[in-house]
């Protein structure tokens, strides 16, 4: 199947690329959403009856719910003009040359190896990491850890999936969670048995199943008591996709005493609407950390949340958002304190440039029985030029007199004296700016795996070229 050669300008404007209908007979994707499409997805995957029903119920919810009236402008999304299920191979560009020039150029500058580039661009089904993945998989198998794509998870571990799937984010949670629940495909399934400490980060792109870059991916992570796992999604290189809508759902169940860390670096190309629901349940003394970097996309709306359901549970959200030309990144985090002695921290850093708009939107809620809950929110924004914009919408709702909550935010531009000082020491303006911005987001980057931190810093440097304070 051929993909029309993408035009850069159209890409920037968020043009949605169509593609010719494939001529082979196995499955003919149709635009638009209907019961028939949902049934077809379910039967193609030979899913159990409960999942088929789950999907159909979710479709009803999706239809019944209005679009969110708050947040970013979503009026350009045309649900009838989207392919809801495409075989992974069909969405890949056929060859390297078909990819937009700016994306290839960024990869070159980031110093990403050729093979990896091709994999990330979706032009290669073969990639060395397949070998790596199998090696890792053997190790994981030996300690009872399941790490597979969600479709295989459902096939191979139906009892576990059925018990947890959709329990943290029910299909009627919001319009886009409902959409995902109806048409999900791909994503990861991770199960860590009691007391097991997974000492290497589980990286989604180790899995060779190309569905991991899917439009409607669905990830479910279950950490049994006392276990530890770090899951890494995405990467700092720009991900080119012809899909205009990416709407994932991620559910985490952190049982008593477990710790789950979930790291995302999202860098979709700037034609993508990235509307993601991420939520974790943290039981007694469990720790859940969301590290969430949003660098790309046309529109992102994503607020990773943690329900602190057990005494002493702790949640942390670290969020970095960048919005350049034509981008609106509406990110943030939520912590819902349900149990006593629970604590949460939200730390958000955002940078807007070239007319981009970043937003922090957050909620801290303390339920009546969550006595001695503590929460602290800090969000800082840098606005690099007069075209750009930054918004902060923090919600704090407290129903407990012993709870203690704080929120602080600052918005500013890069200080002229800071720039002047660095430039007087021989740095170019762009380097000085990059250094200041990298310093600004350092509290987040230091929590990333090293290679991600390095790539993120380089990415910021690239984005700062031509920036003026």
């Amino acid at each position: 199947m051929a993909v029309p050669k993408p035009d850069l300008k159209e890409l920037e404007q968020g043009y949605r690329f169509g593609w010719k209908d494939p001529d082979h007979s196995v499955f003919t994707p149709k635009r638009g959403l209907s019961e028939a499409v949902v049934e077809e997805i379910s039967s193609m995957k030979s899913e159990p009856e409960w999942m088929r029903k789950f999907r159909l119920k979710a479709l009803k919810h999706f239809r019944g719910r209005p679009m969110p009236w708050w947040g970013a402008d979503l009026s350009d999304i045309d649900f009838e003009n989207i392919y809801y299920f495409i075989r992974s191979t069909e969405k890949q560009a056929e060859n390297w040359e078909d990819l937009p020039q700016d994306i290839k150029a960024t990869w070159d500058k980031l110093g990403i190896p050729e093979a990896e580039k091709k994999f990330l661009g979706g032009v290669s089904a073969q990639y060395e990491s397949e070998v790596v993945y199998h090696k890792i998989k053997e190790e994981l198998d030996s300690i009872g850890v399941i790490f597979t794509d969600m479709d295989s998870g459902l096939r191979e571990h139906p009892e576990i999936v059925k018990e947890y799937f959709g329990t943290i984010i029910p299909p009627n949670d919001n319009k886009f969670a409902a959409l995902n629940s109806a048409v999900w495909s791909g994503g990861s399934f991770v199960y860590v048995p009691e007391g097991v400490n997974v000492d290497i980060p589980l990286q989604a792109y180790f899995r060779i199943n190309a569905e991991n870059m899917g439009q409607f991916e669905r990830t479910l992570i279950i950490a049994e008591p006392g276990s530890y796992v770090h899951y890494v999604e995405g990467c700092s290189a720009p991900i080119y996709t012809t899909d205009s809508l990416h709407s994932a759902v991620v559910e985490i169940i952190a049982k008593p005493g477990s710790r789950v860390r979930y790291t995302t670096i999202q860098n979709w190309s700037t034609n993508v609407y990235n509307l993601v629901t991420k939520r974790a349940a943290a039981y007694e003394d469990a720790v859940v950390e969301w590290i969430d970097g949003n660098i790309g996309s046309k529109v992102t709306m994503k607020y990773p949340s943690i329900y602190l359901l057990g005494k002493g549970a702790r949640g942390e959200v670290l969020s970095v958002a960048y919005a350049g030309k034509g981008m609106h990144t509406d990110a943030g985090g939520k912590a819902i304190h349900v149990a006593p002695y629970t604590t949460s921290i939200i730390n958000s850093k955002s940078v807007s440039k070239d007319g981009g708009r970043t937003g922090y939107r957050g909620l801290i809620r303390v339920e009546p029985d969550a006595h001695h809950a503590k929460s602290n929110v800090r969000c800082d924004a840098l606005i690099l030029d007069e075209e750009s914009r930054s918004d902060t919408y923090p919600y704090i709702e407290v129903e407990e007199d012993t709870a203690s909550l704080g929120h602080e935010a600052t918005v500013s531009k890069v200080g002229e004296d800071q720039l002047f000082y660095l430039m007087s020491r021989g740095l170019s303006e762009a380097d000085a700016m990059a250094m200041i911005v990298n310093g600004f987001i350092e509290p987040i980057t230091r929590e990333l795996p090293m290679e991600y931190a390095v790539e993120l810093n380089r990415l910021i440097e690239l984005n700062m070229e031509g920036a003026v304070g």
Partner: protein
Amino acid sequence: MSETLIENGLTEKELPSPPGQPAWTRSLRQEAFELFRALPIPSQETEEWRYTDLSGLDLDAFAPFASGRVSDNLDGVAEEVQEAVGELGERAGLLVQHNSETATVHLSPEDADRGVIFVGLDRALAEHADLLEKRLHRLVPAERTKFLALHAAFRTGGVFVYVPAGVRVELPLQSLTYVDAEGLAVFPHTLIVAEQGAEVTFIERFVSRPLERALSDAVTEVFVGPGARVRYVSLQDWGEGMTHLSVQRAVLDRDAELRSLAVAFGGSLSRTEVESVLSASGGHSEMLGVYFTDGSQHFDHRSLQDHVAPNCGSEVLYKGALKGRSRAVYSGWVHVRKDAQKTNAFQTNRNIVLSDEAKADSIPNLEIEANDVRCGHAASVGPVDEDVRFYMQSRGIPADEAERLIVTGFFQEVLDRVPLPEVRESLEQAIEDELERSD
């Protein structure tokens, strides 16, 4: 004095028509009444009203007018009203509104000679229509909500403060609105105009006896001219049973300064929206707030710092304490528009929760469209600091005395910014009273 529920409802034939009013006021009322009928009661589905449920408010149960006892001087007004006026301290003028009517008004002759106007709004419309035509309901228009339409249709009484260019009113002007009519809807309207370089302080209080049901649908519009300085204090101390809905909006011209303080203690439900529009360079707006809730009171405070022009500053500081099963909501907006470079805007909300059934929400929002700005906000909700209490107890101060000291100290940060001794003293007293009241 206690009146019974008035028969007349919020109907078209009850639209007030005080003597000597210009024709445009009649059409304004008529249009507002149509809007009132057409608009829905604000729904909790909207962001602005998310925390306040008015769906149960039965507007048919209110009467738009009740008379008060009118007199040439303060000695002639009703006794309870005199009592409510209390100790006033030195002042340049006083206006008393009893129910829907201006009961008495006085302005020092010196200030009157210098062109200061201080009268009830109905009289102002008869005598100074030219000063009002381009201002009345212009900052807070009727079409904004059903309640503002209702206000614009049935407004009576009210206060008009006008200070000509360059005139400085040394002592505060004061007003008291007192309600004792069961089932009454009052529509207090304060319109303040300070021309170029003028200076004035205006303090208003709202008091009522405990009522089964009453509605206060209030609007304040403040025009701060170039280089003018206005201090505006509103003290909401309604009795039980009052639903208080108030919008206070000011527009600041070049180099203007507004210092406002909104205090809320009373009423069953109290919603106050305080807004400053910095429309020209060099303006500065300080917006302070104090609230103390108890019982089952529901308070909803909103602030807006709207920076339209560059080189302006604004600062919001709202502090509240909560007792009983009460709920207090603060939501604030800093909006820095594209041209408002070199803005300094800050916003702080702090809540101290004194009971385990009270509920506090705090939503300080920022929307920043300019880059060369310094903006920040902070919000906190928490109990009395146990460490501080423990320290004080270890120094021999009993637990409840320690709590009293901590709470009064908490409010001191706001009170210290109000250089009006009579306001400070009455606030300190009100805070003490609230602390002593058992739930």
